[in-house]
């Protein structure tokens, strides 16, 4: 007797939990690999999955086994030239030791290598990070609704009828409306029973008749209580709830003056990209505005932002002014979460730094959720850094600045800027 069963439609992700357990256990390793990957990857595939490798010895499951040494007799197949008594000189590690221990690991490699998906990669990448000041999530003009259940109501369309609740209500009503009658009925029935138990001669036939008619009258009245009445009907209530839709705009400001070379721009781009990926995870809808500047600022598209070359002096305030204008025109802070990220090598026209300070404090900082400034330079700071530092003292929770020297600093600096800072601030 055999049964043949098609199980192909059953779930196939049975091992997901176990896989998750594994990732959880080796979080530290994976995080490190993710961090390394961030620094080594080309910019375009920042957000792909990643091959993770963990040293085999770290994930080894120890078992008691024989070590090398002692006297071992081994049977091997495929003899061609040996006869009894032949002596084979030892040459380091030969056949002898791979028999006992190594066989269970299969491939016998030193690294356990596996792939994590893009989502897992991003999870590890941004784990423990938090966008500061996410509180302002405004209802946008074209509010979206979602339909949620909101209990039970007495009115509704037949399609939403809640059968169980309706029958329960009907049952309760029937009990309530008939209880006094049923009590009377019980009294009459016991009276009738007693009467009928009496000896035939002693029976009062008239009383029996009266009782019987009373009883049937009561039964009729009880029967007239309807099984289901209009007001028993209950309906599932669904209501539309406005859905807060969060949108964010990210301003990328980059200095493209002559002093910024390709390597520096590359680093800036990595930083912006990280920030962009991060914003995308936190907000449903993210826009990016690219502003580049030398002596004058210009809004450009992504391609131009990263790849076109220009030279000239540097006036940072031009970019800030442009940002201020775009914010006013297109991104009112009542509807948008605004993030600013600025990358520069710290060079600026000398008189300009104080202007920057003023624009930031008066016009930009009050409106943005967060403003981060990275200075990509191995050299000492100049006037711009000092001015920005004074901005930071004024807006300590909304303004952050860090210095980046090489590619390997980007991810750590990013983590530092966005690491969870305990309690949320408003």
């Amino acid at each position, binding site marked *: *007797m*055999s*049964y*043949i*069963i*098609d*199980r*192909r*439609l*059953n779930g*196939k*992700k*049975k*091992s997901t*939990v*176990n*896989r998750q*357990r*594994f990732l*959880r*256990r080796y979080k530290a390793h994976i995080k490190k690999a993710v961090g390394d990957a961030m620094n080594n990857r080309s910019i375009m595939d920042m957000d792909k999955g990643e091959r993770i490798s963990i040293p085999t010895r770290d994930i080894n*499951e*120890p*078992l*008691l*086994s*024989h*070590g*090398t*040494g*002692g*006297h*071992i*007799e*081994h*049977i*091997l*197949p*495929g*003899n*061609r030239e*040996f*006869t*009894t008594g*032949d*002596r*084979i*000189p*030892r040459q380091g590690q*030969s056949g*002898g030791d791979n028999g*006992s*221990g190594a*066989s269970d690991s*299969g*491939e016998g490699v030193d690294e*356990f*290598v*596996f*792939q994590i998906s893009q989502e897992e990669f991003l999870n590890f990448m941004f784990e423990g990070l938090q966008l500061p000041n996410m509180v302002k999530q405004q209802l946008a003009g074209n509010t979206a609704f979602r339909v949620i259940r909101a209990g039970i109501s007495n009115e509704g369309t037949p399609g939403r009828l809640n059968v169980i609740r309706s029958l329960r209500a009907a049952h309760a009503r029937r009990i309530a409306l008939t209880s006094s009658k049923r009590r009377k009925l019980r009294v009459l029935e016991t009276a009738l029973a007693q009467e009928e138990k009496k000896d035939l001669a002693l029976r009062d036939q008239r009383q029996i008749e009266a009782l019987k008619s009373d009883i049937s009258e009561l039964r009729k009245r009880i029967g007239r209580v309807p099984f289901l009445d209009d007001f028993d009907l209950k309906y599932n209530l669904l209501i539309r709830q406005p859905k807060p839709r969060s949108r964010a705009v990210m301003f990328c400001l980059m200095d493209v003056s002559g002093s910024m070379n390709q390597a520096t721009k590359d680093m800036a781009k990595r930083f912006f990209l990280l920030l962009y990926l991060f914003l995308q995870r936190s907000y449903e809808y993210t826009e990016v505005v690219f502003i580049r500047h030398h002596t004058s600022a210009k809004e450009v598209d992504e391609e131009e932002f990263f790849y076109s070359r220009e030279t000239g002096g540097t006036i940072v305030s031009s970019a800030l002014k442009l940002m201020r204008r775009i914010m006013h025109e297109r991104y009112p802070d009542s509807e948008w979460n605004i993030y600013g990220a600025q990358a520069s090598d710290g060079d600026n026209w000398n008189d300009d730094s104080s202007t920057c300070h003023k624009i930031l404090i008066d016009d930009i900082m009050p409106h943005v959720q967060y403003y981060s400034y990275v200075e990509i330079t191995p050299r000492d700071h100049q006037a711009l850094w000092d001015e920005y530092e004074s901005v930071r003292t004024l807006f300590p929770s909304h303004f952050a600045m860090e210095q980046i020297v090489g590619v390997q600093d980007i991810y750590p600096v990013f983590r530092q800027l966005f690491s969870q800072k305990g309690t949320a601030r408003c």
Partner: protein
Amino acid sequence: MLDTYANSSDSPKSDSQGPISTTSEWTFELIQQYDRVIGELAGEFGLDTYPNQIEVISSEQMMDAYSSVGMPVGYHHWSYGKQFISVENSYQRGMMGLAYEIVINANPCIAYLMEENTMTMQALVIAHAAYGHNSFFKGNYLFRAWTDASSIIDYLIFAKNYISRCEERYGLDKVEGILDSCHALMNYGVDRYKRPYPISAVEEERQQQEREEYRQRQLNDLWRTIPKLGEGTESTKKKRFPEEPQENILYFIEKNAPLLENWQRELVRIVRKLAQYFYPQRQTQVMNEGWATFWHYTLLTELYRRGRVTEGFMMEFLQSHTNVIYQPGFDNPLYSGINPYTLGFSIFSDLRRICENPTKEDQRWFPDIAGSSWRETLQFAMRDFKDESFILQFLSPKVMRDMKLFCISDNDKEKDIIVSAIHDECGYRQLRENLAGQYNLGNREPNIQVYAVDTRGDRSLTLHHTQYQRRPLGKDTAEVLRHLHRLWGFEVHLNSHNGKEITASYHCPEQGRDRQESEEEPMLIPKPI
């Protein structure tokens, strides 16, 4: 949704002769027909089987099954995740094909077919798993005595639920820690001589509660430190604990570890039960695979002889079959030990030859079975042996010659490795003995037993390793000892004995590292009385 195709006996085609199928596409009807025909044939050959439950699954599901040691349900543990990831990786990179089949020793016997396979492969798997392995599970004495096919799935469900309840209550990390430690000692959680008592899941749950109370009472008794009245006279005669060395370390832990909570003891028990369930499989690998391979070969060639399968079918079948029993030589880069399929298949096939066409040599080596009925002889060989005794009994000179077996002796006291026997008249016996020894679990795993517990002192646990041919313990030993320490809760010592002499000692927590050799050790070993 399940589609169940019960095997109906009144199918119109049952008597039609000629090939069952001509293409390599499979359908459920064809699988059903093949199963019936193969089943009838197996019946003719006298194979006794559990009912079959043949399940068609996809390759992803096969990978899932792979990583949970083939069981349909299992508790969650990271090591299964690791297994899954590595299977998934090597499959995706094309480094390995998935096995065609997994079969579970349960009643009914569950065999998986992969949907990607051709009709030929499905028939091969049905013959191999659903009739070969199945009859082995039902017939072999180890399986009959040690595992209870009808209750294993129930027990796994109980284990899974119990462990996830523990995880909710005590946290993932704590549960995982205990399971890690138990897994490290899993091979030492086996009763080799006592038959476990089969029970169902419901029963198990009820008993589990009784056990909790009982254990606590037992423990309190063992660790009682209040002196008893009138003990003075006996105090000189300290009672040893345990009275005899214990080989089942996990069982000992479960019953006696002083600090474990009840749920932790139950986890130890679950791992121990599973180890016990897999114990016969570890002891009969060669026989089990050899038996199944012999029968898929015998059944399908018989089908061909009767004209029920086409030549194309046979070509494909033979190609897979030869792949399965391919044995690379020791100097081949592909060599990774003796292929159990090859060895088992060769022995069983040769047994049949000895019965049917005995030579002079066979008359001399196997006087009892040469010329006897091959079916009965094979049934006997399958029923009453395990790998070690099976090889010792039935490995014939012809198989040794065919496989060109030879024995090398690797003694660390000698300068060279010596070829101590080859496949010739004076080497057969030694080859056979040594090969059998290679499949003796007792030789393969270090012999480690619980030796003593210092019940009145520091509660330390001492284990003895009795060396087999002076072989020392492997490099994981200290690590495993740490796991044992986690379970025991007090100091753990392991002494490796070669005869009377202690050649190595391991301690957890580690003591002064420089003091490794034997001289200063004895103070830690409770003196036997």
